[in-house]
């Protein structure tokens, strides 16, 4: 067939464009000695954990990190999915993974012994590996009180003084779900309306920005996770001032405790390296890993006996809300609906 050289080179180039990535096919049929982790935890944060795990066990850890869609990816990949373990940063994604049917029950005496019942799925489809509290950051200069309830956040005395990130953010979603679990949907709606009425500005930014806006005098109190304040104070010199302008108050629900969220794991239904996956999950609740969670990520270790970082314990005695995380998960959708309904973010 007479083909001009120019056209032929074009065709060749096109073929190469498809073939090059295909040749770089990453992981198909992983050999033993590996475990594939899909993680919502940023690669940088989990890297020290996985390095230690590999050093300990010789098992290589392959990762892919993203901020959304991982359970969907596992579900769509189906029986051929390379995923062994999914690591999440909150309960919502765990529930999503379970609902999509990408999790398999984990049978492990180690996990049952170490992880408190409140922090695991009754059906053993997910386990927590670390915990964090959603707390109040308050201006040192303008807020005198050192105690507060979540209910009080809707009190008109805070009118125009509260900062918070989007109501659809996963951490707020879980907090609002806990509010629903405690107060019931009708009262929770009132509460959310009250909180919205108290906002100094439209919800935006992240938890660090809450501290920044308090430091800037835009608001007096705000809601954030425990480890963000610690990170700003200990690891981020340029943000230290934001932490220093604020104090952390551990709020409680009336008659209950401080709202906790978890980072957790599932074992993928079609995990090609199931044994290694299980090994990794058990390793994550071991002493060494829990110490890394506490000291490097400023989280509450899930394993009894491992102590939190001094900055975290410096917030005060934590009285964790006994509400099972599974119950919070059940109210997650109702919370998202409520946020839409009261136009929280608008």
């Amino acid at each position: 067939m007479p083909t001009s050289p120019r056209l032929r080179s074009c065709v060749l180039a096109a073929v190469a464009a498809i073939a090059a990535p295909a040749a770089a096919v990453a992981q198909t049929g992983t050999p033993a000695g590996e475990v594939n982790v899909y993680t919502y935890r940023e690669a940088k944060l989990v890297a020290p954990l996985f390095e230690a795990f590999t050093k300990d066990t010789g098992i290589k850890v392959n990762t892919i990190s993203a901020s959304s869609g991982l359970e969907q990816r596992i579900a769509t990949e189906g029986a051929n999915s390379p995923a062994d373990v999914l690591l999440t940063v909150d309960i919502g994604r765990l529930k999503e993974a379970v609902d999509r049917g990408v999790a398999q029950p984990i049978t492990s005496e180690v996990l049952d012994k170490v992880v408190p019942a409140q922090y695991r799925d009754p059906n053993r489809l997910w386990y927590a590996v670390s915990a964090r509290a959603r707390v109040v950051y308050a201006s040192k200069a303008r807020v005198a009180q050192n105690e507060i309830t979540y209910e009080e956040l809707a009190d008109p005395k805070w009118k125009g003084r509260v900062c918070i990130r989007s109501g659809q953010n996963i951490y707020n979603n879980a907090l609002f779900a806990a509010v629903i679990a405690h107060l019931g949907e009708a009262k929770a709606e009132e509460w959310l309306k009250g909180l919205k009425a108290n906002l100094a500005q439209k919800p935006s930014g992240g938890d660090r920005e809450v501290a920044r806006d308090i430091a800037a005098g835009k608001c007096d109190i705000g809601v954030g996770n425990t480890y963000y304040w610690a990170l700003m104070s200990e690891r981020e010199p340029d943000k230290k001032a934001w932490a220093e302008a604020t104090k952390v108050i551990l709020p409680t629900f009336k008659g209950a405790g401080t709202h906790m969220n978890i980072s957790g794991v599932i074992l993928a239904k079609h995990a090609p390296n199931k044994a290694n996956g299980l090994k990794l999950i058990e390793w994550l609740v071991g002493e060494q890993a829990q110490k890394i969670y506490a000291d490097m990520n400023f989280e509450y270790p899930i394993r009894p006996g491992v102590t939190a970082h001094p900055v975290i314990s410096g917030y005060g005695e934590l009285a964790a809300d006994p509400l099972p995380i599974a119950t919070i998960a059940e109210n997650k959708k109702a919370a998202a609906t409520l946020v839409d309904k009261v136009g929280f973010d608008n």
Partner: protein
Amino acid sequence: MDVRHEAGHDREEIGAEGPDPAGPVIAGRGRRSASFALRRLRPRHPLAWGLLVAVAALVLTPVASLVAIGSRGDPELWPHLAAYVLPDAVATTLMLLAGVAALTTLIGVGTAWLVAVHDFPGRGLVTWLLPLPLAFPTYIVAYVYADTLDTLGPVQGALRGLLGITVPAGSLLPEVRSLGGAVVVMSLVLYPYVYLAMRAMLQARSAALTEAARLLGAGGFRIARAITLPMARPALAAGLALVLMETLNDIGATEYLGVRTLTLAVFTTWLNRGSLAGAAQIACVMLVAVAALIALERHARRGRSVAASSADSRACRRVPLAGRAGALALLACLVPVGLGFAVPFVFLLREVFTRGLLVGFDPDLVRHAGSTVMLAGGATVLTLALGFGVAFAARLIRRRRAGALLGAAGLGYAVPGTVLALGLLGPLVAVDEAIGSVVRALTGHGAGLLLAGSAAAVTIAYTIRFLAIATGFAQAALARLPVDLDDAAASVGARPRRVVAAVHLPLVRPALLGAALLVFVDCLKELPATLLLRPLNTETLATYVYQFATRGSFEEGALAALLIVLVGLVPVIRMVRLSDDLDPDAPLA
């Protein structure tokens, strides 16, 4: 007819068009002028049809899979979305689009007008500088401005110093994290699309008419109003269409700035309301809206044929601006470059040095930069091959139906990255499973996820997403070549394949290069689809930066962000030089 001569002549016309990233969108002017008699004689071109159908199918596959996902939705969700989510999201989206359209038009047309029509000290420099913001991903500029202009940021700090305020109490400036802030930030990054399209149009298209008008005694303003702007309308439409689709697709910047657009509603519906189907439904509605936008743009471009028929594309002499007027013109051009490029660039540089990111250099970055360039390069080659392939095919066929297929091939540009990724994953896995079952039958082992689990997934996603740029450039360039050219070649016995290779391909080279540069830059910056589809242990520079951004400390990713911009600068500068080469003022080689 002397083909060589014709070619040389046409080059000039391409020159006007080549650098025009306007061309990009979806020109789709079919060859309606072809006569019936000829059509009957024309061969059927099965290969060309095959290519067109295959590429259109490739692009429509994720859309179809999206529709399929959407059709499984639960009926309870819509009333909720319609009551509480969509009204506000639609209003916000429309305001954002209107604001960005207005501001990019102001900046893009204004600066293009200055450099194309006037001459002033520094004109050469700003001509070259004005497109630079294109190298920045919008989300990075959003982070930079939110940080710089924050109450505790350097600007307000200095302001407080000037005003003698010691304790910060609220913001002295308008809030960046707002709709207005988003409009400004996105306009600063996206105006080059309008600028590039308008500049090319302004300096070439209207030359003859302008000169005639001037000879007849019309003033500059009158010429602008009566001749230049109406003629440039198609270019403006093309540039704006790109701007608006980029705006609509954005998720990083708008989310960070707290602007709740429809694209964000797709995300929250999927992630928080737990309904992928609902998300797909919103996405489908958005697709319809974008299709309408494309139709509108095409309609606006229709006027172009008049301009194109002007064979005389000499540039008119530029009106010199001296003294204060010249200085003002220079300033007007420097401001958008300064805000859209210099400020974020200096910010990143400062972060890189104050944080010691060079000293504590993350060796992984080299690998990530490598995969970024590999992925973007591979996708660019594939996109150009397919995009120009279908454009050639449609030209050979000269049928309206072929034009429609060509239009369908450009639809991917309208699909938000995440949505595209979601729609693409299912079909990819289906192909993988089909391959797998064949392989298993032959060897007894499965083949795993050949496409969905490899870099092929990202490459295909980029290709679908940015195909419209390639087809747009190709169509715009091909439209400049008279059909007689093909007929002449055919009449001396050249087969279609040879017509494409020997006649079309060399003549559209500038457009090919322009498209390549734009596609490459867009691939470099692409984030959402990459996040979702990339294989294990693979990062691109964009996903690397994003990691830090999601942790709320994007400054630590400053070096990677800087690398994206630096790598992106090479093609952007090349693009400017390309358009300079083709500047009607410049001697044509």
